[in-house]
């Protein structure tokens, strides 16, 4: 498969309530397996996916945060979060389920500009 395109995955849904976060993650993991050039941005409610101490078993679901934590192992190293969304939702950068780089609004716009294909869920 060609690898020239930059894929951007925008995770903007809270986890567990809907299957959106899980669906997007499945596509990201597939992109990793097929060695695509992929970046992931947690935007708005999507930053809730980064919350630490998640326990999906309380609602008979897989723990999303745990699956996300595997992304660097799969070679997905470009992980970003909307900086402003974290404190708005009671999250602190140092206490997340996986390390992400916080982006200001200008950097978010630059990330979109650089991408060739944008999935947004």
């Amino acid at each position: 498969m060609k690898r020239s395109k930059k894929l951007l995955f925008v995770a903007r849904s809270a986890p567990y309530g809907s299957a959106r976060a899980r669906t997007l993650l499945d596509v990201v993991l597939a992109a990793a397996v097929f060695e695509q050039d992929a970046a992931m941005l947690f935007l708005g409610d999507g930053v809730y996916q980064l919350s630490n101490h998640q326990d999906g078993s309380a609602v008979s679901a897989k723990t999303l945060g745990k699956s996300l934590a595997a992304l660097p192992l799969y070679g997905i190293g470009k992980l970003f979060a909307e900086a402003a969304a974290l404190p708005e939702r009671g999250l602190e950068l140092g206490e997340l389920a996986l390390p992400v780089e916080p982006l200001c609004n200008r950097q978010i716009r630059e990330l979109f500009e650089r991408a060739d294909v944008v999935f947004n869920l």
Partner: protein
Amino acid sequence: MSCLHLLSKSPASGLLELASKALVPGDALLLLEDGVYFQSQPQQLAALPAGVTIHFLEQDLLARGLHGALPENAGRIDYDGLVELCIRHDKTTSWF
């Protein structure tokens, strides 16, 4: 006749603003599923009329890693507590 309002979407959905139009003193608000994210964004809850009790569904808090304090006047309940809440109020309605 009092009503139990079940709200299952995150604060970003704007649903609480809509539900507020129907909430009266004596009613109860149950936050469940993604509704429990109001734990981390409690500002909108402060605007509810006095006399509305607020409850968070425990299992949904746990799943989402929301271990912080609940807003003042709010309690946490499990499914058995939810059944009790349904009985204590005359009817229910669901905002989703």
